[in-house]
């Protein structure tokens, strides 16, 4: 296991440098002047332009710029946003909110995937199976922002069951609607994994043995079938955690949730490219870290992985 952990961590090093290099390269090698782009259509003060050029080390050769950027990133110096706040501070304030939102989405996704997957697997080939699979696929085809607008309109505005926007005070209750809505658009993957492994488990010898020794399906289904089918669903849910953190931009923008996605959303709308880059880098690195943790979780849950 230790060997596996070390190997997996070593693999992440080139990925870290590769991803950060690509993001950095994309921004500073594209046509157009990134500093001038920051000002949009306005004509900037030449002195300000010079100062910014120096601040972002644009007077240095490209590769030097990149390593300065990496050094700053690794030492936790993430620069400042346009309003003068340090990115660290903004991150520290916004991250807990995003974490709350994503936790709700992940828990809801897990419940939906296990519930419908179990139903589908146990009723294989019957109406309930086809209907629930169809429903999940239709929900999955709705673009997330459309689903969020629909939820916002019907549940927030028409029915008034949930706050229409979240605002500064992001409580668990207020985050429930956007979190569950996002979960509804993604649970199909986990549901299928659950369905597949339930079908496989029901044909397994140990399930036949359980019935043979006189147990009823009341006990066999939760203890023998469901529990053994959970591993792929757990790892899939964990993997979607990373994707969700990276994908909160639209959700938080639409529901005005003061998390990382909203910071990125505002920066995109205002065209603050350095802030966009800082947060995209942070989100990408978090995505990489979550993926490592998922692989390790997989190795803990399924011993076969460790020996590959």
């Amino acid at each position, binding site marked *: 296991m230790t060997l596996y952990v070390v190997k997996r961590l070593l*693999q992440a090093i*080139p*990925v870290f440098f*590769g*991803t950060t290099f*690509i*993001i950095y390269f*994309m*921004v500073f090698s*594209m*046509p*157009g002047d*990134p500093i001038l*782009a920051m000002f949009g259509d306005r004509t900037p003060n030449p002195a300000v332009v010079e100062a910014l050029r120096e601040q972002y080390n644009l007077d240095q050769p490209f590769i030097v710029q990149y390593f300065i950027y990496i050094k700053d990133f690794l030492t936790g110096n993430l620069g400042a946003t346009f309003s003068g706040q340090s990115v660290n501070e903004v991150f520290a304030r916004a991250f807990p909110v995003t974490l709350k939102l994503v936790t709700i989405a992940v828990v809801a996704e897990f419940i939906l995937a296990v519930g419908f997957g179990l139903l589908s697997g146990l009723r294989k*080939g019957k109406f309930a199976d086809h209907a629930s699979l169809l429903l999940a*696929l*239709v929900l*999955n*085809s*709705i*673009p*997330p*922002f*459309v689903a969020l*607008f*629909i939820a*916002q*309109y019907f549940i927030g*505005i028409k029915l008034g069951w949930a706050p229409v926007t979240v605002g500064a005070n992001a409580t668990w209750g207020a985050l429930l609607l956007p979190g569950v809505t996002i979960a509804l658009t993604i649970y199909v993957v986990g549901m299928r994994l659950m369905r597949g492994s339930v079908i496989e488990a029901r044909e397994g010898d140990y399930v036949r043995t359980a019935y043979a020794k006189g147990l009823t399906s009341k006990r066999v289904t939760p203890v023998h079938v469901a529990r053994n089918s959970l591993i792929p669903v757990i790892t899939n849910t964990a993997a979607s955690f990373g*994707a969700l953190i*990276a*994908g909160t*931009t*639209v959700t938080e*923008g*639409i529901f005005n949730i003061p998390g990382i996605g909203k910071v*990125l*959303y505002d920066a*995109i*709308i205002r*065209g603050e*490219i350095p802030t*966009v*880059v800082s947060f*995209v880098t942070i*989100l*990408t690195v978090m*995505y*990489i870290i979550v*993926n490592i943790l998922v692989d390790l979780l997989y190795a803990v849950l399924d011993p076969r992985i460790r020996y590959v």
Partner: protein
Amino acid sequence: MSDRNAHYVAPVDETQPGAVDQVKLSARKSNMWLDAWRDLRKRPLFYVALTLSVIFLVMALFPSWFTDADPNFAQLSDSNGPAEPGHPLGFNRQGYDVWSHIVYGAKTSLTVGLLTVLITGVIGVPMGAIAGYYGGWVDSLLSRIGDIFFSIPYFLAAVVVMSVLNDYRNPLVISFAIGGFAWASLARIVRAEVLRNKNLEYVMASEAVGRSRGSTLLKHVLPNSMGPVIVALTLSLGAAITAEATLSVLGIGLSGYISWGKDIAQAQQTLRTDPAVLFWPSLALTLTVLAFTFLGELIRDALDPKARARR
């Protein structure tokens, strides 16, 4: 003679030598694709998805067949106006005809979707195929490059590209912004398929009769690996269309083109008073994505003999 004395004599094997290997000439022609097609034809959902895709495709190619209204004509006096003859869905906040924007938006969505799929395929298939087939250091190198691109969520990458390329917001750039990162997961699929195929006997046979490695890859291994690739590309068509619309909602999508995403973003401002203006382009977008998702899913099912048998 009583039966007691009768010995059991095994019947002579009537099969003539050579008959075992004989090919039944009257048999129906069959291969992976024909089997899949025969299966698809039996599924009602396939016709639903196909009809929807064809409608949107025709809409994209010949928008004037669907509406007489000019999508670029706006009158503020029509702002959020109700439906009237010739304008079945009314007007949006700027006074544009909603239905004509849906019709002309199909072209934008499908152009971006198809271009993105093309770019994804053109990068992803060779990367995966070469890595899987040649193995060794080539595989290590290409797979590590793929890992790097795979580790940047493609939507975030597109956000960075489109923020920087503020002045170049056309379908080609947006397709490169999405497809330039989405290829990595396709390359993984292709690599796995090629790995599965490359040690099979037909590959050995092809090389034994003197075909070169590169030619074997192109002529035999790749065509046999195409099933999952077609499925992944069909599904990514829907994902690309969603990504374009989402970028437009964020205000970094296309500029100068009619886009469902842009219309939806603008309609958000009047969500409380006039939700229909938001609803119609959302429905068009969802139906398009739905059509391609179902096509991909059904093709996946049809190509998998095990899934066919299970039904």
